[in-house]
């Protein structure tokens, strides 16, 4: 007769079959076929039966001119935009997230309201937050320009979302508004997990709160912050909806995902778009591996 643990192991494997099937059919298969399609001439007409063409979607020298994703300045422009977006939005979110988390720790009558308010931006769909900010920043009737004019800072309304100089800043701010709460919640949980004495130590010496925080609390919540950065970073690197909604065609803010999707569904260059997606995946993969190595996040399990 089989032992109980053997039966349990067998049952466990059976229970994992559905997950495995779904992940193989809906993640691995499309991933591989995207890789393959990036090596074909797939367009709308021959999408189900494309021809293999090698690496020309990536790079090709034709009569002295370079073609392909890697030779497209718009692609590199979108890479740059994505990196700028990621670095600045995450820096802002970490600073805001930590500040919010510390404010969430304050024990008084407003405590519940702070914790509730912080969750609201997180629950609001990106499309809705994009539209809300677009409306507040609208050049003629937007409340933001109205306030600035009232304060005498501006003479007339500014089109913040379409101005090439400000559109990236606007997008970073909308993203920070929407996702700082997520960082705040992770950091707050990290702070809550600390022994009470650590938090008390910071309170006693109230005059030097910032130094205390920097030297005592910050190192202890660094793992929580690192986790938040990884999650947010991977999210930011694949940013799509926000940028697509604010200004889909603008090359000042176009992200890698917007670039790849545009090639596929606006120009029907599916092979080329697949090559762009593959490059994007590679870039994100390399950044993720470097970051995880650097922060030793893969050892987080052992730290528990």
């Amino acid at each position, binding site marked *: 007769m089989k032992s109980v643990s053997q039966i349990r*192991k067998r*049952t*466990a494997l059976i*229970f*994992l079959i*559905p*997950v495995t099937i*779904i*992940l193989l059919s*809906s*993640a691995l298969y*499309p*991933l591989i*076929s*995207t890789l393959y*399609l990036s090596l074909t001439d797939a367009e709308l007409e021959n999408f189900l039966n494309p021809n293999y063409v090698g690496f020309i979607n990536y790079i090709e020298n034709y009569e002295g001119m370079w073609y392909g994703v890697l030779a497209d300045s718009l692609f590199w422009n979108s890479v740059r935009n994505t990196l700028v977006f990621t670095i600045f939005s995450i820096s802002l979110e970490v600073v805001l997230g930590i500040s919010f988390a510390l404010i969430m720790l*304050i024990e*008084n009558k*407003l405590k519940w309201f*702070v*914790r*509730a308010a*912080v*969750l*609201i*931006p997180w*629950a*609001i*769909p*990106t*499309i*809705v937050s994009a*539209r*809300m900010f677009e*409306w507040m920043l*609208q050049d003629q009737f937007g409340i933001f320009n*109205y306030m600035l004019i009232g304060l005498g800072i501006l003479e007339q309304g500014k089109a913040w979302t379409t101005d090439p100089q400000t559109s990236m800043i606007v997008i970073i701010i909308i993203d920070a*508004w929407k996702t700082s*709460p*997520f960082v705040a*919640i*992770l950091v707050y*949980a990290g702070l809550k997990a600390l022994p009470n004495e650590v938090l008390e130590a910071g309170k006693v010496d*109230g005059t030097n709160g910032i130094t205390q925080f920097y030297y005592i609390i910050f190192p202890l919540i660094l793992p929580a912050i690192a*986790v938040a950065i990884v999650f947010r970073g991977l999210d930011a690197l694949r940013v*799509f*909806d926000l940028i*697509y*909604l604010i200004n889909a065609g603008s090359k000042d803010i176009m992200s890698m995902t917007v670039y*790849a*999707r545009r090639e*596929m569904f606006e120009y029907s260059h*599916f092979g080329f*778009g697949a090559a762009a*997606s593959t490059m*994007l*995946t590679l870039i*994100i993969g390399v950044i*993720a591996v470097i970051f995880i190595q650097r922060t030793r996040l893969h050892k987080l399990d052992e730290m*528990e």
Partner: protein
Amino acid sequence: MNKLYDKIFKYGLQIIVIIFCVFPFYYAVMTSLEGSAAVFVPNFFPTEINPKNYIYLLFEHNFPNTILNSLFVATVTVSISITISYFAAWSLSRVNFQGRSMFLFVILAISMFPQIAVLTGMYQLFLNFKEFYFNIFDLRVKGITSLLWLCFTYTMFNIPFTVWVLTTFMKGVPKEIEEAAIVDGASSFLILRKIFLPIMTPAIFTTAIMAMIAVWNEFLFALTFTATNSDRTITVGIALINGTVEYEVPWGSIMAASVIVTVPLVIITLLLQGRIMSGLTAGSIKG
């Protein structure tokens, strides 16, 4: 005196955070309640209450339909992914077998995938699916092809998350609870139904709500795989609200749509505040 300053300072900080987080939503609610003339006068408090924007959405726009579509996709997706993940979570949290951490690692890696990485392959699969589906079923049910396809793709993007969170929650259940049942010779299936289900219900509920919010908010796939007015989901629906006159953006209606879509989420989130916070942290920290 110093203490009073300290108190005021703390309240001040809290109020700044509350205003920062709530103001954009408040402003959307306010705009949505104003008639067409008042919308275009900037102010902080509503000058009138006019349901015009909501009435326009409900009767002249395809909006109710998009809500039904989103509800359909969210319900199907979440039921399937939660059921499958519940069993998988038990395997991954309570049983020691070779390759367990490898399996968890792969799941985490997939959850971090950029959706665009699979989009081309997914689209090709979609065209094949459509052809196959059209050959089997008659015209009457063709309308939901895209929605069924969305259910499939969302299930895939939800499963890594739901498996991960449920595994973390299940790890927290004390061993003794299960051991007694094992000694009694109960099958794993019975243990999962009779012992874990009651304990796990709150966690399952939280996970389901979070998965539902994720589906509700998804945009890239919804935009790619829905092509007609009848099969749009809410996010695409809002993105496509346009005025009757070109260059005239109907901000009142857009804000009304945003409010309709967001209010249920905000209410759920506020009611389940503590649970969602623990769900969010289970989804990332422990992993």
